[in-house]
């Protein structure tokens, strides 16, 4: 029962890698997911400018409910082309 987290851009450095797999028993809210992360990373993904995509679709932080097989991506401000 695994949930994949993706960390884009500079969040990759905070997370220590571009992705992370959590073993989850049931769908989790963003707050519950953050509890499973290192405190620095939990703060970084909660920053107001970080957008969130669930399985490729942008969602509001309060709407997140992600469980087995889901992919949750954290998108910090872009620093484009």
């Amino acid at each position: 029962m695994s949930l994949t987290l993706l960390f884009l851009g500079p969040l990759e450095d905070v997370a220590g890698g571009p992705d992370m797999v959590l073993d989850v028993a049931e769908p989790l809210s963003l707050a519950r997911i953050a509890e499973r992360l290192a405190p620095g990373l939990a703060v970084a993904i909660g920053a107001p400018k970080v957008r969130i995509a669930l399985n490729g679709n942008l969602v509001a932080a309060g709407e997140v409910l992600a469980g087995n097989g889901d992919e949750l991506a954290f998108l910090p401000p872009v620093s484009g082309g």
Partner: protein
Amino acid sequence: MRRVVLALEAFDPACELERFSHASQSAGGIVSFLGQVRQEDGDPVEALELRHYEPLTLPGMEALVRRAEGHWPLASVMAIHRVGVMVPGDPIVLVACAARHRRDAFAAADFLMDHLKSSAWFWKREKTAQGWRWVEPRDQDHADLTRWNAVP
């Protein structure tokens, strides 16, 4: 012609532009922008990497091009953006807009570049002798976007 590409490998801007201009002969004018990795003496940047988020980056580029097509009467549009690791001199982004009236082509190319730089889903990092470092967004980029508030 509409050509929107997220290029995983190097592309050839001259070849792309030649094809574009041949496909746009009903337009009087073509404006293009080519962005390449700067190559300056003494510049500490050895390489540059652009990352993307597959589910959003190309669809976002396509939506942006449709927005430009909806606002300016364009005969053809092209937007090609590299991702991956590049070295100085490598092309990063190529935008071209063909229109009957050159003012439309200039405005649309300018619009596309402002948005590709500031609102498209790309993250950039640079490599120097100290290693890789993520580039922070620039305030100027966001100021640039306000120029286009009137474009639906």
